[in-house]
């Protein structure tokens, strides 16, 4: 009897998990299926059915008409530089906040914490005006600086927390007694010890930067400095949509991040879990 209950509940548990998995995966599978339909097939046929014939020309047309090479290059460029700079700056500030005793820390740390809850949208206009008058409109730098700044609050919060609880004072003291300055201690001891939290920060800011849409759209004109999310609306406008190609452009757009996720899924889920709740 007990075995029956156990067996039954195992099945129920699995069913629940399978149900949720299907619910998350199906929309993405559906998207890829639609990308092989002609616009006419999509509009007149059932949304549940497979394409009447697999129309691969959509991929040709979308690839040749959108600057995916440029978009992809920019996405990688923005994401990698943002990640590197945010990780370094956050480690530096985190170390100072956690281990160098100054009364002003409380104020500064609080200032960064406020930034976690602030929304980008609420500063969009003054930021646009500032970037424009600084001559940084439609430049890579003009996008990178806001990206870095917006990644900092969460990163500094995580770093400070990690260093405060994870790097023993004795270790730093020992190094200081050996005559190492604060900076040297940071480079030789603290930074290497912070690799776990740095990974978390890197993942969070990579995903955030990779998917960022609104700032990139407002701070650039033309395709030169746009990143992948810009491709999304190109086959769908206020005067009509070409659905087959719309879904094709969406499919091409999510392939890189899907591959990235498939390869690093273990590190990503672990890293996010460790980062989102204080270590």
């Amino acid at each position, binding site marked *: 009897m007990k075995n029956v209950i156990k067996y039954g*509940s*195992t099945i129920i*548990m*699995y069913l*629940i*998990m399978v149900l*949720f*998995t299907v619910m*998350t*995966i199906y*929309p*993405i599978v*559906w*998207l890829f299926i639609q990308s092989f339909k002609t616009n006419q097939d999509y509009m007149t046929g059932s*949304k549940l059915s497979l394409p009447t014939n697999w129309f691969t020309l959509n991929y040709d047309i979308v690839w040749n008409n959108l600057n995916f090479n440029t978009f992809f290059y920019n996405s990688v460029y923005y994401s990698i530089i943002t990640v590197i700079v945010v990780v370094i700056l956050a480690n*530096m*500030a985190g170390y*100072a906040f956690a281990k160098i005793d100054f009364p002003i820390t409380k104020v*500064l740390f609080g*200032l*960064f914490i*406020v*930034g976690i809850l602030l*929304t980008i*949208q*609420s*500063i*969009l*206009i*003054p*930021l646009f005006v*500032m970037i424009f008058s600084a001559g940084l409109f439609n430049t890579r730098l003009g996008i990178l*600086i806001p990206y870095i*700044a*917006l990644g*900092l609050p969460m990163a*500094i919060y995580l770093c400070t927390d990690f260093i405060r609880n994870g790097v023993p004072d004795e270790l730093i003291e020992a190094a200081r007694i050996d005559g190492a*300055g604060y900076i040297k201690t940071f480079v030789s001891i603290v930074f290497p010890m912070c690799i776990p939290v740095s990974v978390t920060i890197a993942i969070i800011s990579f995903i955030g930067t*990779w*998917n960022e*849409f*609104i700032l990139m759209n*407002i701070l650039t004109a033309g395709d030169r400095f746009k990143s*992948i999310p810009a491709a*999304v*609306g190109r086959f769908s406008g206020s005067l009509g949509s070409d659905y087959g190609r719309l879904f094709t452009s*969406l499919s091409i*757009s*999510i392939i890189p*991040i899907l591959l*990235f996720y498939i390869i690093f*899924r273990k590190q*990503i*889920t*672990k890293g*996010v*879990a460790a980062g*989102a*709740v*204080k270590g």
Partner: protein
Amino acid sequence: MHMTMKTQKKLSYALLVLPALVVYLAVVAFPTIFSVILSLTNYNGGLIFGNPDIEVVGFTSYRWMFTEPTRSFYTSLRNNLLIVGVSVFGQIPLGFILAYILNQKLIKRGRGFFQSMIFLPYVISPIIIGVLFNAMIINPRSLYWEVARFFNPDIQFTLHSNPMLPVLFVILWMFTGFYMIIFLAHMQRIDPAILEAARIDGANEPRVLRHIVLPAMTSEIVTCAILAISGSLKTFDLIYAMTNGGPAGQTRVLSLFMYLSAFSGAPNYPLANAISTVMVIISIILIVVVRWAAKLFDRHGGYGK
């Protein structure tokens, strides 16, 4: 060599903190203050400095925002609160339940697979998700309605009367996996021996959950609530792509309301800046409330570190 310890300490501190501080102040703090100032003027594009047409007009834009007849501000605020609701009372409990199931010994195979799959939506751009779900849910011939009609051919198309429902559903879909991952990581830290002992003592699952797992997770639940609330206020891309606030502005949130005021059609920067300022104030109030709540939980639960 001749530097005193104190100077060296000060210099190092400055060197470590300043780069982050400067970038942050320039890009986040300064525009925030700037936005508050602009909200009190009639600045509406063009030159900011040395523009003779700019006047201080006080709270005109605020008055307009709170009293204008279409009541867009209140609709947007209500929608933001709905999203907070679905985050705190939808994503978090659901994420907790899924994590709890995954943490059982019952699920032996595929734990990593389920975990990765349910978390997947979190890494996809909200813009893409918005366009995708617009096609999947909203139209009368969408996937959702085809499935619904398969089960009940007489079902009436009524989505237009509850326009926020599909948006809330998608938000639930996007973030449940995120909370599941966090809860799971912390459940795995609970000493299995304690759970085992309780079970041997004859405690059934609900009792184990209530008396051991839940209390151990209080502080994580509070943290998740903080994340959920702040995330909810930031919702923008998804709705922008999925409904653009329509029909009749019924799915607008504050950030979209601000964006549309500033960047669509004739710009109304003063109004947009006023909305920004109110959003900043709401954020600050939330921070205070949440910190207060966290302290309260810490004191009563004692599950801080």
